[in-house]
């Protein structure tokens, strides 16, 4: 049987897929919270992402940007273990240590539209749940679009 989208959250919890060492050993990916970046007057976007204690989950685990551009992310590690953050960015991926109870900011540049995974790429943090998504909304510039009538989309 299947569950509806509205039932999904409750079902994940009931089965024990949204926590550590319940139904599965780790936490099923993309079961965390969804957050939105804020856009400043300078056009830069900003967000804060935390690591939840003993949950090996980014909060939010899905960060939504209104469009491509520059994003400043403050990472906060509330966990009692050391992790790190590897985040895609044009030029090179950015990487930082996140020792226990530490915070730090990194700046990344991403094109839109599309989505990107970020993670803590040590141990098997990724398998346990520390993979998150940055979702970039919007469209490509008009100059990059095909010269054709509007087409149907799914």
């Amino acid at each position, binding site marked *: 049987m299947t569950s509806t989208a509205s039932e999904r959250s409750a079902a994940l919890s009931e089965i024990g897929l949204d926590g550590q060492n319940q139904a599965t050993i780790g936490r099923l990916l993309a079961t965390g919270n969804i957050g939105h970046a804020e856009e400043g007057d300078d056009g830069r976007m900003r967000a804060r992402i935390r690591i939840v204690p003993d949950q090996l989950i980014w909060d939010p685990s899905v960060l939504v940007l209104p469009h491509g551009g520059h994003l400043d992310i403050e*990472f906060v590690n509330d966990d009692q273990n050391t992790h790190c953050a590897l985040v*895609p960015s*044009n030029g090179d991926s950015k990487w930082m240590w996140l020792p226990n109870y530490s*915070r730090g900011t990194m700046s990344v540049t991403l094109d839109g539209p599309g*989505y990107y*995974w970020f993670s803590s790429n040590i141990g098997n943090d990724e398998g346990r749940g520390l*993979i998150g998504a940055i979702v970039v909304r919007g469209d490509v510039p008009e100059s990059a679009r095909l010269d054709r009538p509007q087409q149907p*989309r799914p």
Partner: protein
Amino acid sequence: MTDIQDRPDIEYGQAPPAVDFGSLTTAGGTAPPVAQDVTYERILDARSEPQNWLTYYGAYDGQRYSPLDEINTENVVRITPAWVFSFSPHGLHAGQSTYAFENCPIVVDGVMYVSGWDGWVWALDAKTGQLLWQYKHAIPFDVSLCCGNVNRGVAVAHGKVFVCTLNAHVLALDATTGECLWDVTSGDVRAGESLTVAPLVVKDRVVVGSSGGEFGVRGHLDAYDMETGERVWRCYTIPKPGEPGSETWPSDGEAWTRGGGNGWITGTFDPETNLLYWGTGNPAPDFDGEVRPGDNLYTDSVIAVDADTGEIRWHYQCTPHDLWDYDSNMECILFEQGGRKLLAHFDKNGYCFVLDRTNGERVRIFPFVDRITWGEISPEGQVTPRIYPDKEGEDVHFYPGPAGAKEWTHASYSPRTGLFYVPVQDTGATVARRRREFKESIPYWGAAVTVDIEEMAGSVSAFDPSTGEEVWRWRNDLPMCASVLTTAGDLVFAGTPSGRFVALDARSGELLWQFNCGSGHHSSPITYSVDGKQYIAVPVGWGAWVEGFLPGMMGGPHGQAMFVFSLPEGQDSSGGR
């Protein structure tokens, strides 16, 4: 955004500052400024500096031939690995199951410029393999890729490295540091467009062709100003109503708007005709021709494009009204014979087309694979389809399968032997038409497709273009799915799907040397020299559209390494630290 507040019981420390992930490698950060002096004039005369591989095919003529001969039929048995550059990604990236190392390296005065799958560009010391700098473009996980996460190479000129990205950007990087100098969005990822092509520098422009034919886009070539990134021209390969060629599409409806015809493989160029010779891809939907009656120009064609204006001067369509996915993207090799300026194009449909490159006139057509059942093309160019998907849901089986008797991987030509050397795939497929509604960004094949995993064959075959006769054949039990390289040492280098890299005698096809690289080949090997010492470089990394060209090797190891070979004397493998 909603935010969880800091915990009052924690006294937070400052995390160490973020760094570029590439700084945590052996990269030194800079390359010698060798690319500064690479000009259009040097690329025009690329074969006069055989120590370098200045452009995608080695020279504008697409011959993939090098005058280097230190390594030859007498001593090739002694060559050994000089160095290996290996790379493996961190985190998740697009096409994790389907990436391949399809690159063709560029070498300029001891520096090798290499693009990887998923947005990587590396500058390497071509003598030692030392990583000099690394660039990484962030590629969305959800880009539309019909045929794997791949990039076929970069172009280098005027101190810049030009590269395309899977999310349809064109970039110019500083060749000494890898810093991005300009970045233009060339295509629409929401429409299913991407870029996998190696750019071609012509005059002061960078020419690229789009990908996305399996998603029902409208194919195009674009030329960008090398210094600014401004688009100079765009050439659509599917005409709008009223434009020349539009009579080959239904006069009503929207078939042309999603007609395909993408130019996803680098073209060749003749400065005397000022024409780019570019192959175009399949029409969309690939296998359901009933929704697009007509010849469907300029799909599956060789088009001659004015390098200054982007106008199509002439065309030759290899598979009119394609029902088999027979793209004609593969290279057009320029050569002269009997005082005529010719080009040779080995097509997916199993035939080689020799054309007069001044006007597109047919000179010769000949088959280059054993099994051709889809139809027949006469020496006069008459195309007779015989087996094709027609009735809804009814299986038909034909040779060659949709990957063709030769996919995009390139043939070569030796002016010393006068022969063409062709990587041949002899594989069939079963296809049933399955009509579907067009929706932007969703695959638009119009069929169910399964490619054979048995009764396959492959070869490197040598052909005399003056007669179309096969002169020799080196047989492989699996199809050959990688480009070949020819040198003045009378050698033909080719990689197999099992990982073997082989050297053949260009005059006889005799196997002279082989090395197991550990992963299948699906790239373009090159040769170059540093301090007078010749090297052979081959990117190794099996993957991409394996379900299309060799599903019998779907389980083959991916691999991801640049192997470089030379004679053992004076090797310097000191790269790294």
